[in-house]
């Protein structure tokens, strides 16, 4: 199969994910990531001057490296993801393995329960997607994952939603009300910006 140029795929992903109700930010390297996470947490009322906090289930991001040291500088980020911490956290941070351009979907190996806790319980989910990991369609994303190893594959498109009362679209039923996708540039895949 011939895929369109990478820039076009990335634009498609951004367009479709936005249409599905996700918020997208492009971040440059580790400094950009720290800045963005800090400001998102600040907006969410989490940080040094508050009891609100974020749980982070992502250990590292492709092209940037381990996060523990990096995000330790951000006030209110915790790495101990348990039922208790996640159900009280305002924000959950996870990695995402693949982005699907056709539908704006994140595909994640969520075999680790911490990935699921951080992406299901808090009202805000921040997903860190390496910029080189966007593929055209679901088939391409799933071809990179072996279900025998990835025991729980989670495909996430936009925030939690329902239309069960009078078909009125309402966001944030049981899962996150906000899905924020940070496309983290690793400096090698070229500039994905439109």
């Amino acid at each position, binding site marked *: 199969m011939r895929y369109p140029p990478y820039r076009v795929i990335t634009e498609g992903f951004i367009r479709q994910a936005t249409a599905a109700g996700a918020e997208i930010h492009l971040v440059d390297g580790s400094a950009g990531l720290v800045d963005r996470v800090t400001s998102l947490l600040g907006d969410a009322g989490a940080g040094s001057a508050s009891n609100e906090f974020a749980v982070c289930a992502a250990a590292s991001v492709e092209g940037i490296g381990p996060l523990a040291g990096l995000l330790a500088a951000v006030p209110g980020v915790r790495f101990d993801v348990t039922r208790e911490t996640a159900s009280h956290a305002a924000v959950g941070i996870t990695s995402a393995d693949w982005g699907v351009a056709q539908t704006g979907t994140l595909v994640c190996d969520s075999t680790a329960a911490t990935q699921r806790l951080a992406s299901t319980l808090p009202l805000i989910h921040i997903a860190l997607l390496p910029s080189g990991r966007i593929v055209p369609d679901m088939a391409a994303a*799933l071809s990179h994952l072996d279900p*025998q190893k990835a025991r729980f594959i*989670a495909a996430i*498109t936009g925030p939690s939603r329902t239309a069960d009362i009078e078909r009125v679209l309402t966001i944030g039923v049981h899962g996150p009300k906000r899905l924020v996708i940070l496309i983290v540039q690793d400096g090698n895949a070229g500039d994905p910006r439109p």
Partner: protein
Amino acid sequence: MSDFVKSIDRALADPVLSSSLTRFSEAYRTGRARAFEGIDFEAVRTQIAERKSHAARNLDVLAERFTQQAQAAGAKVTRVSTPVDACQYVLAVANQSGARSIVKSKSMASEEIHLNATLEKAGIEVAETDLGEWIIQLAHERPSHMVLPAIHKTRGQVASLFSRQTNEELTDDIPGLVAVARRELRSRFLSADIGITGANIAVAETGSIVLLTNEGNARLVTTLPRTHIAIVGLEKLVERFDDIQPILTALPRSATGQLITSYVSIITGAAENTDGTPKDLHIVLLDNRRTEMAADPVFSEALQCIRCGSCLNVCPIFRLVGGHVFGKVYTGGIGAILTAWFDALEESRDIQSLCVQCGTCKDFCPANIDIPALIREVRDRVTHRDGLPFLQRAAYAVVNNRRLFHAALRAASIAQKPVAGGGFIRHLPFALTSMTEGRSLPAIASRPFRDDFPEIPQPECTETAIFYAGCLIDFVYPETGASVVKVLNHAGVRVVFPMEQTCCGAPARYGGSPEAAADAAKANIDALSAQSADYVVSACPTCTAALKIDFPELMDKFGTPDQQQSARIIAEKTRDFSSLVQQLASQGRLKFKQDSPGAGVTAYHDSCHLKRTLGVVNQPRELLSAAGYEISEMAESDTCCGMGGAYSIKMPAVARAVLDRKLTNIKATGAPELSTDCPGCVLQIRGGCDAAGIDVGVRHTADRIADRIAD
């Protein structure tokens, strides 16, 4: 009045139900069409049909492979044959672990086995966590729609249900109500001992189950409790991991017009619990007659269903009466079929009778299931088992005796005099009143077309057509028969009219009596084979479909080799009026009046059998345009008018509600005229306009064209 008829009347009188379902059906079509943009729907549904029918043919092999693979990945898989067995298994798992509390995400299979009742009787608390299912659980009802279980509830009703549950005074603010559900159910998720789900797909190759949700509840149900039980109908099996793709493409688009649901979870064996232990995962493969269905030459097709609900969403009847009337656990068209198997044939007797056989659902089904044909098969088996009601049997016997039937029609033409006036019967006495509620019936013509025909001199031409009139044109609208002959003669086609032709058998075919339909077919095959001709022409799409499709099928089943051969020859030559005449016109064989400003504006109604059975859509429009008419396209032009042959007599209240909708759409065009290619639709719509005092002229396309032939 039967309970079933009462339930129909109640549903039709419920303003919330029909208006919310109707609004949804309108929004659904637009949303679905947008979601399928850029997708080759035919290709996707062919793939799904291939892969699911392959699975249905190999259920045992796939179940075996699935079991091996899922068990190798740490799941416990059990295959159960009855709903009771399934419930007992779940109960045993719950008892072994001392479970007191269960959270569930939406599962039709668990509804099918009535799991909640079993668990609650055992003293276990069960919470449905899908918002719609929770509403229904609090209301002690069953889902009225497979995808939108609480679509029949208003925000006010939800507010009072939630207020009672929480002991709070809640307003009917929808985001507020959703927030209450989040809060109330969150503690249940965190404290539950067991999570129960269904599955949208089960993959034999990998032992995976696939769950599609929007709310995120299935993610919590499968993550937070230490035990997860998935109840999976055997028909959810597919062979390969790759088979997920076409289903993932079609299911959300067909169900809700989404490109994909917010969440798709693919679970393969025991993933990690939140305390690091492996999940106690149980997968219950539910048979409940599915293997029996798979072995049935007709009904195995129903196992292709992916439960998207599109057959509900596009059904002109479902949107009026909803799933509490049109279905049991499974609702709508597919529900009428599944109920006959998962419950009992008897349980579907009333439900299947709601189908008007318009064929719309078949066009939309992403699994390519011929739902109307399967419902007809349910109907056939119901009547085969129980026998036809005496009156219906007597009626088919009369119809199949041509001399008696035609004599009866002639007698009726005289007998109707006291109630007929101006070509209409507006009121009938006694038990027959419902036939004229909301529509005037046409009077039977004083002279049938078969008496007129010998007086129309036939020109010598190089081509000959046998005209198959059908009962309505012959005995009710003979003028339309004259129009057909006039137009064909003008185009250089000589017409012959075999006098032995009789009813095409469609009433029996759609009424559950294929044997009676076959007898009618044989009489007509004899009558039509006696003449040689280039074409067999009918101006009734139902008759055309009978000649072209049903006769060969019925003869394959009930006829001799000679009759099979003759049926095929007739089928090949059979043409509907508009397609044939449009073809002749495009060859320059018709000359139309060239006056200005032309013939005026007409709306056009697509008859069900012309559009969906015969696939004829553009030809009548092109023909009318060529003859000088301007077509004013109407909303839902291809939605059934409610006639449905005998349907409007068996289900008068439903047919009338369908007709009302059609009349509203006709009025909205502002066109002074309406054209259609079906004399049954003419009967229904003209009668409706007359009864409602709507000043729109309703005529058959053949009459419109005959008017425009240059002298």
